[in-house]
């Protein structure tokens, strides 16, 4: 049902936790299923230097939260702002159609975290990919 990449992130979630001194925090809940992702990020000199994540809910939500941190840590903010839903699903191999909203939730968490850190939100066009 789930790809080996999703399985790997479930078995070994990356960068779990919360930063002590974050530049911004995104905490989002899917109101339908109550899945939740809380992402804290630290930005240093235009680079996303550190990120930690917590998540609760179904397997793809946990995997999306985990893989999100791999996609953003060490990247330029200008690159991070361009990330969208399909970057999450591509990084996870694939997601069942009924679980695509989990990737959206991860991008929403990223967007909220960037906004709370004072960055421009990601390109809306990019998030709708």
């Amino acid at each position: 049902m789930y790809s080996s990449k999703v399985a790997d992130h479930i078995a070994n979630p990356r960068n779990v936790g919360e930063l002590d001194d974050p530049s911004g925090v995104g905490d989002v809940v899917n109101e339908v299923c109550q899945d939740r992702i809380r992402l804290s990020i630290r930005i240093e000199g235009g680079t996303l230097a550190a990120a930690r994540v917590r998540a609760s809910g179904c397997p793809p939500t946990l995997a999306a939260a985990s893989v999100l941190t791999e996609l953003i840590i060490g990247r330029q903010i200008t690159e991070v702002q361009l990330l969208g839903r399909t970057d999450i699903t591509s990084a996870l191999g694939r997601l069942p159609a009924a679980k695509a909203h989990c990737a959206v939730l991860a991008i929403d968490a990223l967007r909220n975290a960037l906004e709370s850190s004072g960055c421009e939100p990601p390109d809306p066009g990019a998030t709708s990919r």
Partner: protein
Amino acid sequence: MLVYLDNSATTSTAPDVVAAMLPYFSEQMGNAQSVHSFGQRAKAALEKARRQVATLIGAAPTEIVFVSGGTEADNLAIRGIAEASGQRRGHIITTEIEHPAVLATARALEEQGVVVTYLPVSRGGLVDVAQVGRAIREDTVLVSIMHANNETGTIQPIEEIGKLLGEAHAAGHTRIYFHTDAVQSVGKLPVNIHSLGVDMLSMSAHKIHGPKGIGALYVRKGVRLGKILFGGHHERDRRPGTENIPAIVGFGTACELAGASLEARMSRIADLRDYLERELNDRIPGVRANGDPLARLPNISNLSFEGVDGESLLIALDLKGVAVSTGSACSSGSLEPSHVLTALGLSREQVRGSLRFSFSQYTTREEIDYVVQVIVEIVDRLREMAPDDDAAGVRNASAQS
């Protein structure tokens, strides 16, 4: 280690069952309706299996109708009675926690004008017998209530309901037929159609180490059923279609094996189940058992893990070689929460955090030890990963334990 704890979904076919079936795929391949010797040997095997199935539930062989499985048995019972009673009228009583094979059939009949009452259940999942009595109407033709629930293992008071319906008949009510889906209880409990007082009873082979694709409906002598399939005159004109002799032979053998030392086998399984529950309760805070604590099958444990998503737990367990289910196995493709656990009044979170462990005669204590070990690790990891205020309570409790 690979551990299969999803035996309420399906069981492995017992080696003796496979061995009994094999000749009927090849050298004994006759059609039981044929008059030549090949056909007569198939017919003899069919009737032997019918006796084996009947013996397990205390029925006469002529009261056993072989069908494709539990779903068809439920359909034949419910639609068969509705057909015989005249479509588009009549009243049926069932419960909110039935298997979809009963619920969907009842809903389909509602579309045709039949009135259906869906009785609620207690917090433990039990039907109130008095409530069954109060639901009876002048035009009630059928009561269909499962013997044991497939998600929680809760055993319904079928015997008392049977008596109640007998009393209603004695008091002058037109005969109300009584059907029970015993797919989960046959082979796990002593099941006798006379003491249960049922007119029809659904069974399935693959839940008792028989093959998939074969089941039976017990139909008490004298009960008139309308047809749901049309064709030849097989199964005393109740179910057309060439008999699946290998599967039927396997089913018969499985029934014979299931009846042998049933109580000793189930007592051992209940000990394993209790051991699992005790260990998980001792080692993980926020674990709750669902279903009635006393009226329950020996082989099912339904547990809710606070602050954890059941599907995430299931997938993580699967990665460790452990197979369990969350919600109903038959509903796992849907995003709806289990209708059974919802009917028990569990909160959305409790339903979401539920797992069903179902054991078999092949389950070992070493397997349970392994399962406990990996669940402790996984629940801890999932709770650690959850945002603080989602898991704070159980995480703090965990730190103290």
